[in-house]
Structure formats: C-alpha cells, structure tokens
C-alpha cells in the first residue's frame, strides 16, 4: 500500500510495524512515551504498546545504550533514541567500546541487535549541539553499521531492516527533512539496506550525497540542467558499509565526482570516498574527486548556518570546479 507521509511519520510507521510484529522489539529514549519524542516521531506508540514496550528513560545517554546492550543480551531488540546528534557523546563510550565490539569479543556467540536512532544535521535554527553530523566518528569503528535515509520511503524500510539486522545499527535521521512528504510503499520489497541508489541519471558528473544533502543535490542537478549540465545524483544511503560498486559505475560513466555532506570535510566520509574512488576509477577520472561540506569549525550559530551548510550554491560551485579540469 502506497501512502504519502512526512518522513517523521514514516519512521513512526516503521516503529509501529516492528513493535507489532515482534514482542521483543522495544523503543526506549528520553521523552519517547507520553510526549511522543521532541519531534513527535514516536507519537502514539506508548499509548498503543504500553510503558513496558515504549520506555521513557532517565536523562542519561550512556544509561540508555548500556541498558539496551543488556536487554539485547537477554534477547530483546531495543530501538534507542538519542534526542539530538550532539547528545550522543555521553553514550559514545558504550557504543564504541561495548556495543560495537561485544559480538567479536564473544567470537560470534552473542548478537547485539540494537538500533541507535539519531536525528542529525542542521538547518532548523537550533542552538548548539542540536545540528551536528557525527557519522564519520562512528564509521571509523568496526562493528557498527551506519545508515542515513533521505526520504520517507527509505526511512520506513531502512528502519525496519535496521531493526531486523543482528548487528548494531546507527540510524541517522535527517531532521531537516522530517516534514518532507513522500510516497511510502509499505507492501513493496525493499532493496538491500546498504545499497546506494542512482536517484537521477546524468552524464557529465556524479553528485554523491546522503541524508539531508540528497535533496540539495537533486535541486543542484535541476539548476545545473537549466544551464545545460547533466548531473547524475547518487543517494549513498549507507555510510558503513559504503556501496562503492554503485558509486564506481556512476563515476566510470561520468568521469567526475563531487561528494556533498553536512559534516566537516576534514576526515569526513567524503575523504574516504575520494580515496577509494581514486583507487578504483583512476583512469576514468577527468578531475580529482572534490568535496563540499562543513568547515573545520564548531557548528556555527544558527544565524550563519546557511553559510556553513553545503547549500545549492556551494554544491554548484563544487560542480563548476570539477568541470573546469
């Protein structure tokens, strides 16, 4: 059944379906119960599934992840919510030293099917610690899987797949896109969770993005088309693992690659993509892989965040620089 839903409602629908299908699935986090979350993503779930399944937690991020690990060891499948990106760091130790490594430490004898939902990214005029993109900090850690949907349909299916996954999954939700509506086909068969997708065909240059930046990339391709330039837009969808095969095929076709993400460019996921695509596509590249993203500075106050974020103009500037080679 296809339904037109805002991305936030698609996440809610995925949680509802998962809670309904498996009594071992739990939703836990700060304010996820009566309030329905600060973005109302979990709205109505506690009313329908009870306080034992949709659990309001103390205000303690390490406690949320640490107890979710214990619940997973007991056979539950906790879906945790970290209220905002910048608040994940009190839980970073539990995620990195415990959640990511316990399966390996037990030589595969135990599994940690924990999902960590994190609304991430900027553009909503928030105060500090509410607009960050820390995905690279997690991608560097073996044992975690990291995904970031860009639209409502993917948000629904990728979350369901993340909950079914036996590995810990960091699920980055593009909070600036929570209110964007899209068709969600709940009957369809989803593609692989970690596959990238070509969302717009083109011939002159590949524009790679994920999460909130996909919308910007599509707008840039539209603008470039008006100027006679054909951009292929690839939605990466998964940050760990990265579907390099799909990216490679696109770059072999277009000969140029620009990566756009909100996170700082320095040591960001774009750096890894640039290095690997240069290895894979050296003889196909007409220009170096270029990156457009955040600066090596704390996320700025909201009044100047549009300068920091890779908006339409900065993305097109990156495209122009790549085409100039």
């Amino acid at each position, binding site marked *: 059944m296809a339904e037109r839903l805002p991305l936030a409602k698609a996440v809610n629908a995925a949680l509802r379906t998962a809670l309904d299908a498996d009594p071992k699935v739990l939703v836990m986090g700060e304010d996820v119960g009566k309030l329905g979350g600060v973005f109302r993503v979990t709205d109505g779930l506690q009313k329908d599934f009870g306080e034992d399944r949709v659990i309001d937690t103390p205000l303690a991020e390490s406690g949320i992840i640490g107890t979710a690990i214990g619940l997973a060891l*007991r056979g*539950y499948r906790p879906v945790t919510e970290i209220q905002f990106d910048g608040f994940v760091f009190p839980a970073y*130790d539990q995620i990195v030293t415990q959640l990511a490594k316990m399966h*390996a*430490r*037990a030589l595969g004898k135990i599994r940690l099917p924990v999902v960590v939902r994190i609304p991430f990214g900027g553009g909503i005029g928030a105060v500090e610690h509410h607009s960050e993109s820390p995905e690279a900090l997690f991608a560097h850690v073996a044992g975690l899987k990291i995904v970031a949907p860009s639209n409502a349909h993917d948000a629904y299916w990728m979350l369901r797949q993340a909950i079914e996954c036996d590995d810990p999954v960091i699920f980055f939700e593009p909070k600036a896109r929570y209110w964007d509506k899209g068709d969600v086909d709940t009957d369809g068969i989803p593609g692989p969770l970690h596959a990238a997708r070509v969302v717009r065909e083109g011939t002159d240059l590949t524009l790679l993005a994920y999460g909130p930046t996909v919308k910007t990339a599509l707008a840039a391709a539209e603008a470039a088309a008006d100027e006679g330039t054909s951009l292929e837009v690839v939605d990466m969808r998964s940050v760990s693992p990265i579907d390099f095969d799909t990216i490679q095929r696109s770059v072999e076709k277009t000969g140029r690659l620009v990566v756009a993400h909100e996170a700082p460019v320095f040591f960001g996921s774009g750096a890894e993509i640039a290095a690997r695509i240069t290895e894979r596509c050296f003889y196909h590249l007409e220009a170096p892989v270029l990156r457009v993203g955040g600066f090596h500075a704390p996320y700025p106050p909201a009044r100047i965040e549009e300068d920091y974020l890779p908006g339409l103009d900065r993305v097109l500037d990156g495209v122009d620089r790549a085409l100039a080679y």
Partner: protein
Amino acid sequence: MTVESRAAHGSGARKTATAPRKKAARPARRGGGRSTGGAAGAMVQLLTPEGERVEHPDYSLDITDDELRGLYRDMVLSRRFDAEATALQRQGELGLWPSLLGQEAAQIGSARALRPDDYVFPTYREHGVAWCRGVDPQMLLGMFRGVNHGGWDPNTNNFHLYTIVIGSQVLHATGYAMGVAKDGSDAAVLAYFGDGASSQGDVAEAFTFSAVYNAPVVFFCQNNQWAISEPTERQTRVPLYQRAQGYGFPGVRVDGNDVLAVLAVTRAAAEHARSGQGPMLVEAFTYRMGAHTTSDDPTRYRPDDELAVWEARDPILRLRRHLERLGAADAAFFTALDEESDALARRVREAIRTMPDPDPMAAFEHVYADGHTLVDEERAQYAAYLASFADHAEEN
C-alpha cells in the same frame, strides 16, 4: 516468586520495608589505619579473623560441614589458579594478569549464593566467580595471553565476558535485569565492580535505571581499597554502601574476607531482587593483597604496614581456622586439596603452553553478525597478500 512479589515487580516503583537492615552498629574495620571512605560504617561479619563463628541479627546462615569444606576448596583452588597465572605471566606466557589474591572470600561467597539461572556480569578480576560458574579456568587465560578478547560463550554458564572499561558492565547487568523482569523470570543478576568503578558515571546511571525500573540486580562492589594507586578516599567521602540510600534501595557493607558473611548477605540481596523488591548494593570490604596487575608496583604507593594488617584477616586462613575449630576437616582433607591444587596448576600450565595462536585471518571473523563488504574486501586482500609469499616460495 509469590503473587505479591510479582505485583510489586510490576508496579515498578514500589519500595518495600522488608529489605535487610542493619540494627546493631558495629565499628568499621579500617584498612591499615587508613580511613576507608568517610564515616565508619557497620559491617556484617559471621566469622572473626580467628575463625570464630559469630551471629548477626539480620543475616543468619545454616551451613553444613560439607558446604564449609566446599567453600574452602573453592577459595584454595582459586588462589592456586591465580598464583599459577601470576607465575605464567612472569615466565612470559601471559601478557598481563590481574590477581585476585585476598579477594577469594568476596568472590566465592557471592558466587556460591547464586543459582545457575542467575546471570553474572564480571569485571576482569573475577576468576573465583568464573570458577564457581563452571567456566574452565583456562578459558580466562586467552585474553591475557592475547589469543582472543574473551572467547567464551556467556550464555553457557550465564557468566558474561570480562569487561575492561571500568564500570561499563554495570549498565549491561541493569539492562539484562530489566529484561529478566519483563520476562517474568525470578532470576537475579549480579554486577561486579570495584571501588574505583564506583566513581564512574555508568555505575551512577545503572543505580538510577535499576531503581526507577525496579530491576532485579545486585550491585556487588568489591572494595579492595585501591584503584591501581588511588585509595578509596579518592573515590568517595562516604562508605560506598551508603550510596544506595540516595537512589532509593538498600545498601549493606559486609566483611569481604568472611566467606560466610558474604554468602549470607549476597543470598539475601539476591532474594531481595528475585522477590520483586528491586536492586540492592553490597559492598564487600576486602583487600587486594597483590598488585593491581602484574604491570603495577604497589610498593610505590602502599604503606608498608598495611599488607600485614590485612594478611591477619586472610580469608582462606580464617575459614581454615574455623574448620579446625569445628573439627570439620582433617589432615587428609587438606592433603588431598593440596594435591588437587597442584593438579589444577599443572593442567593450567599445560593448557597455556599448548594454546594455539589464532590464525591471522581470525581478525576478520565475527566483526559483524550479518557481514560487511569492507571486511570482506580487506579479508580477501590480506589473504591474497599472504598467499603471495607462498607463490614466491614455490618459485624459488
């Protein structure tokens, strides 16, 4: 679990007045004249350092001679295993060893208070607990030899992997206990940690979560007086067991060198948890007689006279005196146990020397349960790299 206690379990926040409480105040024992964390706290004791049985108004213990001999055997074998592992580290067979010397009563007494379906979350020094849970001692050596990071199946003996990051496992225990309560099981969960870990935020968060969800977890703090070189005074101004009060659950300090008191108190705490009354904190007041690990040098920070004070409270010697007072163990028993100890040591020594190094490709195994393309790619590349040497050798 009774109907009443199940109801209490379900009600979450209900606090009962049936928790074991201290009535008779007893002066705190002090470690080598040092203050041991603020004000003096009463301490449960059932066996004096001279091996004399004393009664406690809140913690009684009926125990047979056979059970006493069993506790003694567990402590002696744990100490012998520990001594052998320390020797193996000195001989280069282990990279590191954290000795349990002096903490045998705290570990054996608490572990023997548990049922098989209870679940234990240890830190990295719980060799005696592992012994009681039925984990083969040689399994504990793998991570210290460097052939794995744990390796045993936690669900075989309901004994989780050793956790190196201080205090992390206390939250895991709490979450597991929350799951136990959801399942309607009457199992208890035991979380081991040390006096140093009591300063960690994760332990404080575990206290909060367990209290608000009424989780059936026993927090078992082995206060061995030292967190590497930091004394308990650097962790707290109040006796550690008193922390529980602020979270809304009972805390009790037990003489951690008295295996009978530890057994009785831990049994009561486990019963408190399994009957739906929520968490309880047990502070086992004990002493780490050796170094923190084989890399440590306690002579740089410990007062010279402190060890002698605690040697007089040796947990094994104390139970031996008690057995001899009772006439519950004869010379043949002790001789047979010595032989069993030596046999255990020989078995461990043999096991470590025949323990194979893992295949280099093992680094790529079990990183993910459902696979990961980057791991697959790097595994294939490294396998090809290793194979290139074989090709080269053939060419020559």
